[in-house]
């Protein structure tokens, strides 16, 4: 059963150099309260596995939106992402050598995280065949030919922590996501040693009907109250 903790307790758990998966898309529903506290923690050297580098300027007047705060503060030494064009600081830090950036096709990225959490040894995908993705041996195991068709065998991805944002979280940690905010969260919640969910709303158990639970509470380790929006 998930344990309810403060944002300070959550951040205290994350050491320097941790690998961290962060849910959300272009900053939308990054777990903003945890990321904000992490950005002020002085910790760093993180490997961040997140679809993107978010972007400067959020919709409620933030100077840096979501994970862009961690990048701006030079707390990320390695970013594993699919698209970083909306945050110019990613390109700058990559070019000046202060951050390593690995770009992975988005569908492969999602499925590699799923494989990491689902006990699979890898993912065979036609995506990336004949491109420089073949050469990134940290993430691409090999090119395989199966029944006459070429595939890339992509390695599974796991992390020390997954930080995700849920709209409703009940007392046992079951999560319901609103709108388009599910994206990578379902896979990430299975693929990290410690899963922390930031809840926009904490609800009584039973309020999310069993059929509508999207991430089962049994795999959620900690819940942080994100405060109702």
């Amino acid at each position, binding site marked *: 059963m998930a344990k309810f903790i403060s944002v300070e307790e959550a951040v205290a758990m994350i050491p320097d150099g941790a690998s961290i998966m962060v849910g959300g898309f272009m900053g939308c529903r990054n777990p903003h309260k945890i990321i904000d506290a992490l950005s002020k923690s002085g910790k760093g050297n993180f490997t961040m596995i997140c679809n993107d580098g978010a972007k400067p300027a959020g919709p409620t007047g933030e100077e840096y939106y979501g994970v862009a705060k961690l990048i701006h503060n030079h707390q990320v030494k390695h970013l594993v992402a699919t698209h970083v064009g909306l945050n110019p600081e990613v390109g700058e830090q990559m070019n000046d050598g202060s951050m390593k950036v690995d770009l992975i096709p988005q569908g*492969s990225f999602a499925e590699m995280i799923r494989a990491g959490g689902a006990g699979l040894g890898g993912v065979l995908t036609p995506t990336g065949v004949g491109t420089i993705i073949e050469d990134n041996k940290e993430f691409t195991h090999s090119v395989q030919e199966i029944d006459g068709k070429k595939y890339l065998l992509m390695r599974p991805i796991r992390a020390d922590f997954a930080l995700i944002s849920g709209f409703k979280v009940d007392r046992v940690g079951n999560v319901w996501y609103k709108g388009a905010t599910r994206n990578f969260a379902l896979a990430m919640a299975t693929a990290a040693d410690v899963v922390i969910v930031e809840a926009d709303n904490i609800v009584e158990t039973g309020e999310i009907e069993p059929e509508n639970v999207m991430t089962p509470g049994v795999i959620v380790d900690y819940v942080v109250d994100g405060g109702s929006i």
Partner: protein
Amino acid sequence: MDKENIKSYIVARAAKELKDGDVVNLGIGMPTMIPSFLPENVRVTVQAENGLMGVVPCTEESLEHSLYSVDAGATPVKVAPGGCYFDSTVSFGLIRGGHVDVTVLGALEVDEKGNLSNWIIPGKKLPGMGGAMDLVVGAKKVIVTMEHTQKGEPKILKNCRLPLTALNCVDLIITEMGVIEVTEEGLKLVEINPEYTPEQVQKATEARLIISENLKPMV
């Protein structure tokens, strides 16, 4: 034609490629403009790779949509009645699994084998591929919309020079000069903007063009 006219000319032509009932994925920029150019009897379902089906624009300012419902370009959007949301593994299962009929996207370079480059200019620009590599491999039809040249330099080449997005993936190229099909024999100019001659189009194209016997005006 000025920049804006070029864009709407290309987009209006691209809109004609979509059929009633198609499930489509539209890239950032010109492709996103396509729905407003569709005739009333052509209704398509727009998929977004971050987990939306039935995307429609958000006409009013809405913080709620900014916080919970953005498309793959981070623009706040809604889902039309009948649409739905899903996670990224389902979304890309739909994309790779051939459940998206058409994807329309921009390009830095396309070559005569239908190879596409549109995600990185090494040392200069690092946008990343996002969902593009999966989309062009998985969608049933891949349409590139782009300006024919970049600062006067051809973008339709014999061989792509930039890192590839995928091999042999492009079906159709639509520019302000014409419509080009990628065929086994090479690139075939099938429609032409009446403002240009086939010779002018060839001059702006590095790859050799086969001029269709039924070359039609592009409208």
